[in-house]
């Protein structure tokens, strides 16, 4: 306890408990903005936040493999997605063949499935594998990719106490079947995905905006929607002011 400093500056403890995060800096094709920050007990005294220091966004394909680690001898290898094996996975791999990949990353299991498997695969998960609780449905936008949107279903099974993710990819403008008939909770969750990304869900009973005002143009969580961007027309008509900024 003697070493325990009471000052608000966190001093590093002695000895490593767990391997700390790996700064996987991919080969910097976008300007050498991000200096490699050494991991370890030496704290840099520079300003901690460098908001501009991002590398090129990684492009996880359906069969994910970790991006090539830079040959920095001082850094241990970080976590990579590992293949996930379980009886359930075997069953579905046998059934769906190459349309389904199963991996685990940092202890969390996920399926990456082909678009054509939705919604049958989800229905199978609920009916046969007892994933009766749909925790969340969300999407991620990768604008530089051909299939721009990743759609995730996070499912949980009470009986098995197991949580699993299902991921698929669709392109911009494509639609996907709604899961409302499988889990009733998908109603608002899909509405929010539609509201934020513009992804249409076929078969949804009432797909309209939920968080943004009705009649708003633009889908805010897309990467091409600026953070300060607003639907000027809506603002002018409904709020009577020139601009919302």
């Amino acid at each position, binding site marked *: *306890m003697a070493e*325990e400093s009471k000052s*608000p500056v*966190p001093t*590093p*403890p002695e000895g490593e*408990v*767990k*391997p*700390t*995060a790996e*700064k*996987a800096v*991919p080969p910097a094709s976008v300007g050498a903005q991000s200096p490699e*920050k050494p*991991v370890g007990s030496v*704290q*840099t005294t520079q300003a901690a*936040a*460098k*908001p501009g220091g*991002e*590398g090129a*966004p*990684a492009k*996880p394909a359906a069969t994910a493999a970790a991006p090539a680690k830079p040959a920095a001898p001082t850094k241990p290898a970080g*976590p990579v997605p590992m293949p996930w094996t379980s009886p359930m996975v075997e069953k579905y791999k046998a059934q769906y063949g190459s349309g389904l990949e199963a991996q*685990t990353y*940092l*202890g*969390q299991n996920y399926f990456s499935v082909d678009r054509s498997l939705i919604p049958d695969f989800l229905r199978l998960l*609920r009916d046969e594998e007892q994933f*009766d609780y749909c925790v*969340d449905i*969300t999407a*991620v936008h990768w604008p530089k990719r051909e299939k721009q949107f990743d759609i995730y279903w*996070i499912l949980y099974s*009470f*009986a098995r*106490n*197991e949580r699993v993710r299902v991921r698929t990819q669709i392109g911009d403008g494509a639609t996907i079947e709604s899961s*409302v*008939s*499988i*889990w*009733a*909770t998908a*109603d*608002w*969750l899909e509405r*929010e995905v539609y509201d*934020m990304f513009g992804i249409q869900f076929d*078969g949804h*009973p*009432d797909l309209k*905006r939920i*968080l*943004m005002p009705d009649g708003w143009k633009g889908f805010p*969580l897309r990467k091409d*929607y600026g953070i300060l961007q607003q639907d000027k027309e809506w603002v002018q008509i409904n709020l009577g002011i020139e601009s919302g900024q």
Partner: protein
Amino acid sequence: MTEQKTPDQKAPATIPAQSKQLPGGLTDTSMRVTGTRLDPSGALGSRAASAAHLDLDTPDHPYLDSNELVINMGPQHPATHGVLRVILKLDGEKVLGTECVIGYLHRGVEKIAENRTYTMFNPYVDRMDYVAAVSNGLGYCQAVEKLLNVEAPPRANYIRVILTELNRLASHQLWLGTHALDIGAMTPLFYTFRDREEILKIFEKYCGARLTTHAFRIGGCLYETYAGFEKDVKNFLKFFEPKIDEYETLLTGNRIWIERTKNVGVISAADAIALGVTGPVLRASGVKWDIRKAIPYANYADFDFEIPIGENGDTYDRYLVRMREMRQSLRILEQAVNGIPEGPIMAKVPKVIKPAPGEVYHSIEAPKGELGYFIVSDGSTQPYRLRVRPPSFVNLQALDVMVRGALVADVVAVIGTLDIVLGEVDR
């Protein structure tokens, strides 16, 4: 940290057998509205027709049936706990259907997250569920720690548990006061707020803020416990136990309270699971599931506590579940404060947090339900996508199912019993 358990290792959940499998997983057939615009055959079931039957401007549905009245509990209303608009379709006093209009408090937190570094974003999460800010911070910090593959040291976890359980008590107290006020008992509000002050004093002494505390940091806690922290918490435990008895004296056996809350807003376990409802609402319907026990985090496995469940899934059961949860929180607090281990309070986390590319989902048992953070990292210092799975948002969906067939005065009671915070619903 693995979340996959073999089926016989931990099976805490018990759900009743589903009697009849309907589309969408619902078993409630009492108030089925079929034949809506998007679903003419009614194949999608009652839940699917939730809002469509309130569609007011389609030519094939008359605006107002002769017996039906559409009224509006506007965004500004003393009983909606925030800016929530509920459109009610009534037949006299009976509610035929509801539609919730939300988004009045939408601040674009998820978009902001994509433009802030992980550390910079930490204060933002407090503002979502502002009533239980510490829990939000806990979930976020743990999610990022998971992404970084670090674990906070045990001392930090104990401090986190103590503050989170105190926060749970504060959140439940606020719920109790406002819920009782909506139903007409004005006095418990003042009692709970007065007692909540003690908790807020402890927060203020610890981190300087009462409500939006920003108590935790990625990797552990920033502040060491102040001198007298344990004593304060122990005094609070002694002070608070009789207060719960006081609240129960006022309400639990009260004939009028029982009549206003029993069999009001009933939701069956199967419906609750299908609708994704979590937290005390799910537990009151009979499903014994608590993330602190099912997928323990932050050393919760060290503590011995029970999960209270209810039977009927009505408002009275939710009230009892939350009261018992408060008592269990006191148990956890006692164990935690008596056993804070020595050690560091911060794991070895780099100053610039740049997780490896990948994604992680982590959820905690917030006072309102399962609060989840899904973070997608692209290897930079800013999250590529940060999704917050808010318990109140999903619980609010269940409002429609819960008030079908109830009276207008029950709508207010049910909104209160769901314990929603609009900051979390809208983010």
